[in-house]
């Protein structure tokens, strides 16, 4: 198991920007062929209610740009020595979006900038990278995470599309005085359960890529994300409780010492099942999905900025983060937080 222990590193700021178009499940039920009874089941079981998406053409980097600008109203951007962009929706297939953001944000040319392709585990993967760079001698790292899932979820895909929200977060990590412990796992044998089949080297884009295909009651194209919901659910409820116990043990922390369990907001049913297994229902926020949708790698910072912003701004906390999903990939961290800059979640301004 990949385990990471860090000392004297702080998360200084977390800011999240969401798409500015709110869609309620009732408004799009017809597109998916959902009747009133089904809408009510989805609300009750899965926590579906509303979601925020971007208008066509807005990229993840635009949301992260707005988040980062807000951070640099308070913090000195000339100190930043690395920019990491974690996303499945880059601006271009090449070059790295992180490098484009270096210029847009007016950061020094003397920085390292690169993209990481991770989804729902991306906040943890991104933090491990950022902390490792600080451990190697850098002073300040800007981590950007998120996705505009509306870009890859097809309008007629009733399994995936009503679940997804668009968000981009920026996180500032600097030398400091706090500790953090992380663990990470990867299992490529499950790669087919969440996949965009066409457009890469394995299946290059072709005329067939845009043909609508009906599969398990949903319609999508081969350039869109496919999700096998039952396999992902089964994976999540099995590995996440083990993952959380593992990171608690590695960091020598009792679960009673944890102030908040901030998990990737996959759907309400997954979170309820995990919270029940671990008996931590009162410390595990799970409302993000119902209001904002599943925000991929931005769902952990998104939950902080939406629901925990006051405690993160004003208190010393011990928090447990856990992300899990596409890859398959899953990871968790126990992180000490000491009164950081965490303003309320903001909508994208055009």
């Amino acid at each position: 198991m990949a385990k990471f222990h860090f000392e004297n590193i702080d998360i200084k700021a977390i800011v999240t920007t969401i798409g500015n178009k709110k869609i309620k499940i009732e408004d799009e039920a017809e597109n998916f062929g959902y009747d009133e009874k089904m809408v009510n089941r989805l609300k009750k079981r899965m926590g579906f209610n509303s979601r925020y998406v971007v208008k066509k053409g807005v990229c993840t980097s635009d949301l992260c740009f707005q988040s980062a600008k807000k951070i640099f109203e308070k913090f000195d951007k000339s100190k930043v020595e690395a920019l990491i962009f974690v996303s499945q929706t880059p601006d271009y297939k090449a070059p790295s979006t992180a490098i484009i953001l270096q210029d847009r944000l007016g950061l020094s040319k003397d920085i390292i900038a690169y993209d990481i392709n991770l989804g729902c585990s991306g906040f943890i993967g991104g933090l491990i990278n950022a902390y490792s760079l600080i451990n190697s001698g850098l002073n300040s790292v800007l981590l950007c995470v998120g996705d505009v899932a509306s870009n890859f979820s097809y309008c007629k895909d009733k399994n995936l599309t009503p679940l997804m929200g668009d968000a981009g977060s920026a996180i500032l990590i600097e030398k400091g005085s706090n500790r953090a412990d992380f663990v990470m796992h990867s299992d490529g044998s499950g790669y087919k359960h969440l996949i965009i089949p066409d457009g890469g080297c394995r299946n290059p884009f072709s005329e067939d890529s845009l043909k609508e295909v009906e599969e398990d009651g949903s319609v999508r194209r081969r350039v869109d994300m496919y999700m096998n919901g039952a396999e992902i659910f089964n994976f999540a409820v099995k590995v996440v409780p083990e993952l959380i116990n593992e990171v608690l043990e590695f960091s020598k922390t009792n679960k009673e010492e944890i102030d908040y369990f901030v998990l990737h907001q996959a759907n309400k049913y997954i979170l309820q099942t995990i919270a029940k297994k671990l008996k931590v229902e009162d410390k595990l926020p799970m409302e993000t999905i119902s209001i904002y949708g599943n925000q991929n790698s931005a769902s952990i910072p998104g939950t902080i900025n939406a629901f925990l912003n006051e405690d993160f701004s004003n208190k010393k906390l011990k928090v447990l983060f856990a992300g899990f999903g596409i890859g398959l990939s899953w990871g968790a961290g126990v992180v000490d937080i000491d009164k950081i800059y965490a303003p309320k979640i903001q909508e994208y301004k055009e």
Partner: protein
Amino acid sequence: MTKQEFLEELAEVIDTEIELNEDTNLDEIDEYDSIAILSLINFYDELGVKVKPSDFENLKKVSDLIKLAGDKVE
């Protein structure tokens, strides 16, 4: 648990008002869909039966769901 108890719990898990018996065809139950499968994965887990999503493919009748529970149902 007894077969009758299993059938009652099953109706609750699937969230259906149809009275279930062994011969009920699964495709007669409106609520037996992808959400119900997730609930069933949890239900079997709580019973102590390890199931995979693919175990639910090609099941026809409620009796198949009883069989899946193995010796947990008398």
